[in-house]
């Protein structure tokens, strides 16, 4: 019964952890709480898209559609049935999460069907189109508030539920990959013809991935709806789909930990940049010359850093040299360029707040990462603590 003891303890641990997070965050500002909620929602969204995109290899770029289906389904139910249900708001939220998951899973099933005949780019176009159809349909449905949006009662903010959903989504994907049941999905990604020759039901694998992935996105939508208390079709535009896709690709397609990392990183990065202060406490500013100098510096640094991963046969020392070298070259070039550029009057007088540049920096970060590591930060791998063990193990051997 050891297995069940560990299982129950880990589930209780997850619940306690999420509840603890809510308690700790309760003392923080609304802004911090909002970031925590958004980060949790994006973890769910990117990990669930990773199931479709990374693990099963079905290139879907309409994930916001499932998010939207879930949000509107939950919103619609709340508006019409909450009062007559006499349930406490938190319980009601859980109910709408389940309903939203089912609705989004239905939508996922519908989108999954064309994936049986379409591959790669073609499927991407279909999913993109599906996302737009949903958004525009909602925009033109008065019962759902049209483009004015929809007010939702009750408004519940639950960081614990947001993160529990994220944990559940991660656990489900991880379990799938840990057991043989995950192999058909991976096999379909690798080679459909060979999969079906080995008896794998390709249809079932693809549709299952779409249904599961979209169900989680739908639940996340229900959470968003009750947190915001107000949703409009504009909340679920194409840009949301692309941000989720970016998270999956940046983390490394197929890697669950990569998706988690990228979701948190990309949610927090723009906000961190927005909040940067200079020494006197005002918003951090740069002159135009310095900004241009940074651009040149980054280009030089990337030119050198590219060599770190270019050749797998390089020794570790060699890579380290290129790594440090790249940063040093970038900084030196930046320093020289900033002196030169600030001599130009127009550039020197132009004052830019770094907060204004946050989306540009966001974009540059993505471009640089894709240049240096196109397979994503974690590539196909999962993050593990093995290296710590190796480090300790080695040290032990060295001391003996």
């Amino acid at each position, binding site marked *: 019964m050891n297995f069940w003891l560990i299982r129950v303890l880990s589930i209780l641990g997850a619940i306690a952890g999420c509840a603890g997070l809510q308690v700790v965050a309760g003392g923080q500002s609304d802004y911090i709480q909002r970031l925590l909620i958004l980060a949790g929602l994006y973890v769910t969204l990117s990990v669930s898209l990773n199931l479709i995109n990374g693990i099963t290899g079905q290139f879907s770029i309409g994930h916001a559609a499932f998010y939207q289906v879930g949000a509107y389904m939950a919103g619609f139910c709340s508006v019409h049935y909450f009062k007559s249900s006499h349930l406490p708001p938190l319980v009601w939220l859980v109910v709408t999460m389940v309903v939203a998951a089912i609705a989004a899973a239905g939508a996922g099933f519908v989108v999954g069907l064309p994936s049986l005949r379409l591959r790669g780019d073609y499927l991407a176009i279909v999913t993109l189109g599906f996302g737009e159809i949903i958004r525009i349909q909602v925009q033109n449905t008065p019962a759902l508030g049209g483009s004015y949006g929809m007010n939702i009662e009750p408004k519940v903010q639950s960081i614990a539920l947001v993160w529990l959903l994220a944990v559940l989504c991660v656990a489900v994907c991880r379990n799938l990959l840990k057991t*043989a*049941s995950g*192999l*058909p999905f*991976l096999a379909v990604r*690798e080679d459909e013809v*060979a999969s*079906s020759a*080995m008896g794998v039901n390709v249809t079932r694998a693809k549709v299952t991935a779409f249904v599961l992935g979209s169900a989680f996105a739908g639940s996340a939508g229900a959470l968003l709806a009750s947190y915001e208390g107000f949703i409009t079709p504009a909340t679920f535009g194409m840009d949301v789909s692309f941000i989720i896709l970016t998270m999956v690709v940046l983390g490394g397609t197929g890697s669950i930990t990569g998706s988690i990392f990228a979701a948190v990183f990309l949610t927090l990065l723009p906000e961190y940049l927005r909040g940067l202060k200079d020494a006197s406490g005002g918003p951090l500013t740069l002159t135009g010359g310095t900004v241009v100098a940074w651009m040149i510096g980054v280009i030089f640094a990337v030119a050198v850093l590219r060599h770190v991963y270019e050749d797998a046969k390089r020794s570790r020392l060699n890579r380290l040299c290129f790594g440090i070298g790249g940063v040093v070259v970038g900084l030196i070039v930046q320093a020289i360029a900033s002196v030169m550029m600030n001599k130009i009057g127009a550039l020197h007088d132009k004052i830019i707040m770094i907060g204004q540049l946050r989306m540009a920096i966001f974009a540059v970060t993505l471009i640089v990462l894709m240049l240096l590591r196109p397979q994503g930060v974690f590539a196909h791998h999962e993050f593990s603590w093995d290296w710590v063990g190796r480090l300790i193990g080695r040290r032990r051997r060295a001391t003996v």
Partner: protein
Amino acid sequence: MSLLRLDSATIKFGGLVAVNSVSFELDKGDLFGLIGPNGAGKTTCFNLITGVYKPTSGVITFRGKSIGGTPSSKIAAHGIARTFQNIRLFRALSVLENVVVGGYLRHRTGLFSALAYLPSSINETNRLRAEAMELLKVVNLAHVADVRSADLSYGMQRRLEIARAMATQPELLLLDEPAAGMNPLEKEELLVMVKKIRDEHGMTVLLIEHDMRFVMNLCERIVVLDHGEEIAQGPPSAIRNDPKVIAAYLGEAV
């Protein structure tokens, strides 16, 4: 009753008749060769048997049941497994995982127990992995079980494809040019291995091969195709001296 029967199987791609009215029969325990010059329709024949293509006309029966046009995955469940001429491994998966995919047909626990990581699913996974490990020992790949399959040498990849096909526990194993790209030593080992697969694992083998010595040494009966048509059939000794076969391979005497 014969295990596999092709009765004037034909497939046309537009105006091209890739396989024209080919008929042959395999009995249980046969070591059967399918040979012919390039473009003769051998692989197309395999694709017909394994459901990649649907025959334009003609009947294919396996264990007395018609299988022409049945989806590939169903045919694998009926008991026909194959390897591919241009190796089609699941490249990002490990050697062991590749074989487990083959064994997945016999996986009996549902998706839910996997998602919840229940003991039934874990046990099933362990059982499949252990079975796969046994098969890897048969093809001498047990020592590289955890290596990414794309990183294997060419000969090893071919052997892994055979192990993966065997993992479906088929009655009929189709090998598409198993010896291509192997050196003489590897070919010798492969010969022994294929015989072992037939004798010890009780699988019937149908194989395509270009290496004549390999085919003649291994197969007990051979069908020769040329331009989609069957030109000869019989034991190796008869095929070797058949004037039509010699003409197909070497060209006709002027």
